[in-house]
């Protein structure tokens, strides 16, 4: 098992290298001169062509593409993530400031949607065809199809503006900086993101559970004379969970992408917000770094999911 996972981890290295190359290539191919992002237009107009050429040379912009890529990659490996074009602040610092907020939001939404989705999905499967099952199905359809920003904005209007139960957005108010003070700020974005994901988890759990409840080992379990809850949950749900865990694993990238919109709607100071601002400001080193870090996070998440499914399903061979 240890060997399997070590090898699985080693596979990540070529994948990350390939992806970093693609990201660098993608930005190389986007039109526009880097100097025009760096300097205000008036400054460029004032400069002599020789000065501009010297600056290019100094910045290494005249080196071949591959050499620049290797420098960039070497920097990352040494922990030098580059600097933001907008503020000159090191990217590592910018990202580190934002990571806790994004993690907080996505972990809260993930936990919420997983627990609620699995519970509602299994109840739905057990009460198949009942009023409850049908209403949950309708709820699920709405949840899957409603765009996040509409859902988020409606929640804002209802709970923050009309009812005034929850703060309008942002993560912290000036003067309140203890950890628990920002919990009320977390509730709405986490619920909106979580509810949208719950719908999918619920539908998937329902069908997976229905499938496993029709398996013969359920009849075997019933023939032992054990209580129904044990048949349904210890036997039925336990087996049904394996594909659900895989689904949640596939959801992780969506979670990182999904927070972009939610973070905008709720002015949540996370990575998604930073990313949107970076794209708008044509802050290309920052865009590149955030893309690269997101991909890394997704790859590690999928590695974790592999580990988890292997633990859940003894049939998965670990050689």
């Amino acid at each position: 098992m240890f060997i399997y996972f070590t090898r699985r981890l080693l596979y990540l290295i070529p994948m990350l290298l390939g992806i970093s190359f693609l990201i660098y290539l993608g930005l190389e191919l986007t039109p526009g001169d880097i100097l025009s992002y760096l300097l205000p237009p008036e400054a460029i107009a004032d400069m002599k062509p020789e000065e501009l050429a010297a600056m290019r040379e100094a910045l290494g912009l005249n080196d071949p593409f591959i050499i620049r890529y290797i420098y960039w990659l070497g920097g990352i490996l040494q922990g030098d993530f580059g600097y933001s074009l907008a503020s000159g602040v090191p990217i590592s610092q910018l990202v580190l400031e934002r990571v806790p907020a994004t993690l907080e939001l996505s972990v809260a939404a993930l936990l919420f949607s997983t627990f609620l989705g699995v519970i509602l999905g299994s109840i739905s499967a057990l009460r198949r065809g009942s009023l409850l099952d049908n209403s949950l199905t309708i709820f699920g359809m709405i949840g899957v199809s409603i765009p996040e920003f509409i859902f988020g904005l409606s929640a804002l209007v209802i709970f923050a503006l009309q009812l005034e139960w929850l703060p309008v957005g942002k993560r912290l108010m000036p003067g309140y900086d203890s950890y628990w003070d920002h919990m009320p700020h977390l509730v709405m974005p986490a619920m909106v993101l979580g509810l949208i994901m719950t719908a999918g988890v619920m539908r998937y759990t329902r069908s997976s559970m229905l499938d496993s409840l029709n398996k013969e080992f359920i009849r075997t379990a019933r023939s032992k004379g054990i209580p129904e809850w044990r048949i349904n949950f210890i036997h039925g749900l336990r087996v049904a969970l394996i594909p659900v865990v895989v689904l949640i694993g596939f959801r992780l990238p969506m979670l990182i992408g999904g927070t972009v919109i939610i973070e905008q709607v709720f002015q949540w100071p996370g990575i998604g917000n930073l990313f949107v601002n970076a794209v708008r400001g044509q802050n290309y080193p920052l865009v590149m770094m955030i893309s690269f870090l997101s991909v890394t996070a997704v790859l590690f998440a999928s590695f974790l999911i592999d580990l988890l499914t292997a633990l859940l399903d003894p049939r998965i061979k670990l050689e």
Partner: protein
Amino acid sequence: MSADQKVLSVKNLKTYIYVNNRCNKALDGVSFDVYRGKTLCIVGESGCGKSITASSITQLLPKLSRIESGEIIYHSEKGDICIDQLERNGPEMRALRGAEISMIFQDPMTALNPVYRIGAQISEGLKYHSKNTLAQLKQISIELLQQMGIPLAAQRVEDYSHQFSGGMRQRAMIAMAMSCKPKILIADEPTTALDVTIQAQIFELIDELKQRHNTAVILITHDMGVVAELADHVAVMYMGNIVEQGTIDDVLRRPAHPYTEALLKSIPILGKGKQQQIIPIQGSTPDPYQRPKGCQFEPRCPYATEQCQIFPDSQPISGTHEALCWHSEKVLSHA
């Protein structure tokens, strides 16, 4: 304790299955008795109601089916229990399942849960029907696996079902079924999914356990060789009825129902060579939704007459032998 102590009586049992608003009379008046320490074999072709009979006894029926009428009486040590009156998955029914009446299913590949260890699955029923500590339960599962003839049982209880071969899985299933020392063991075609070489071993094991624990066995099969080898009593089923039942000698040597007779003639016998005459049964089983009016076998029966348009009464042949046919005398003399 008399030799013929009844443990289970089924009287005029009717179980109907409802599919797409249509009613399939899967069991249409089935009666038989099961005796302590004896094996009853139920034979018949696919779809004749063998498995529904078995699952009616433990009420492990499909959702859209119902015991319409009739009685299933379990003669327990504490008095008779009408199984048909019990709530399907209620506590009384659960107290019987596994503990008093247990089942072995057709396909051991799918009948075991893939994510739990064999040992835990073997002792799971016992956990609810007795008061044993976890350590005791584990010890019992090891002993059971050993009795089933699985080598290195102490290690194998830690395995998962996918690490077992087909034959071993069925042994584990039997260990599971025998864990609470039930009075009745129902085996629903226990070897259909197994290799021929393993089949004999499994039957031998079931027979040995029957003798050791004086368990009554209901064995569902379509293998006449197995019937001849293991059965004390035989019930032949056709289209939801037991068309003939009796002791093994009665049914196999002196068949009194045309279907039994035809069934026996259609089986090739090993060693008789190419010259033997195998006579297939003419026609095919009728659509269960468009049954013949009278005798269900009438359209395929060489003895059929006008009288067969009326559903036959059970004709006693001898004290132990009966057939559901107007012409049983003729069939008897023919054989």
